[in-house]
């Protein structure tokens, strides 16, 4: 954390190397977050690029107030995803896409992951959750953020995060296993 603060301070002074280290550290998680939200490699790459470009260009406006740098990046990423769905006219709802099409439409790096049918199903089920529920589950269980970090990224209290997380898991369970299990 201290190391990150130093890097942020250096990046704010315009040191590209420092920002490069932050970029390498946070890019995979931000990319995963965006990819699971848009489910399209090219769009996920474009949006991830935009997130880091905006972060670099606006690094001087970022204030160190106890918030981790990742929270700021997630905030930018969430806004980018919202804008993406607002402007995207030819968006195809995932529930109308068959399993075969889902596997075919996925690009190469994700193909390896989707060979497991369970993973494809969980991705599909994840898409059926509320955007906020998706955000919290991805941040918590895919990207290993603490509840505190999620609360700061989403702008909600710790209690609210726990409640949303609980409801999201319950809904996901119903989607995957139905009411029986």
């Amino acid at each position, binding site marked *: 954390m201290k190391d990150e603060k130093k890097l942020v301070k250096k990046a704010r002074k*315009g040191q*590209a190397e420092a*920002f*490069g280290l932050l*970029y390498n550290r946070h*890019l*995979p998680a931000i*990319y*995963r977050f965006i*990819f*699971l939200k848009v489910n399209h*490699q090219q769009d*996920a*790459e474009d949006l*991830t*690029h935009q997130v*880091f*470009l905006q972060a*670099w*260009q*606006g*690094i*001087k*406006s970022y204030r160190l107030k106890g918030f981790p740098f990742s929270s700021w990046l997630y905030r930018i990423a969430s806004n980018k995803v919202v804008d993406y769905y607002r402007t995207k006219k030819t968006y195809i709802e995932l529930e109308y896409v068959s399993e075969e099409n889902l596997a075919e439409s996925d690009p190469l*790096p*994700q193909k*390896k*992951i989707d060979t*497991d049918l*369970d*993973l494809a199903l*969980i*991705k599909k089920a*994840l898409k059926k959750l509320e955007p906020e529920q998706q955000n919290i*589950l*991805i941040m918590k*269980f*895919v*990207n*290993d953020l603490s509840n505190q970090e999620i609360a700061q990224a989403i702008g909600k209290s710790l209690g609210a995060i726990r409640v949303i997380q609980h409801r999201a*898991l319950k809904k*996901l*369970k119903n989607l*995957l*296993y139905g009411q029986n*299990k």
Partner: protein
Amino acid sequence: MDKTNKEIIEQLKRLKNIQPDIAFVQNSWRLILTSPVSQPKIWFWPAKLALALTLIFLLLGAVYFTLIFNNKPTLSSNNFNSQFLTKEFDNLAINIQFQELSYYQKINQVIASALVEISQSNNHLNPQTLKNEGEKLDQLLNPPQNPSHIEELLNKIIL
């Protein structure tokens, strides 16, 4: 945590394997490096400060002049006393009625005397009287410009 929840979380954790393409990471970083970092607009702060100070001075000036030149009487608690206000209002109405009465009495007298004069005497229509009045009026409107006459008048006033 029950078994199903654990299973779901395990599956979610496996999504960690999603990784960005290396070519994309390198290309994106190259593009970011070539883009300029926006500078905070520090040069704009003095202008904002000057504007704020000007507005504060104008506001203070307005308050000062309002306090100095405002001669409105101060409000006393008596002004809001309902009994006092009712009494004042009643007196005001009576005063107005008295003034109206006095006016009508005077005007009636004037009209009556004028009517009597017109009906009883036609002296005011006498040509000689009208001529005399006309001459007097001419003298008043066009006084003689003779300096000796002025001197005569001045002497009258002085002596």
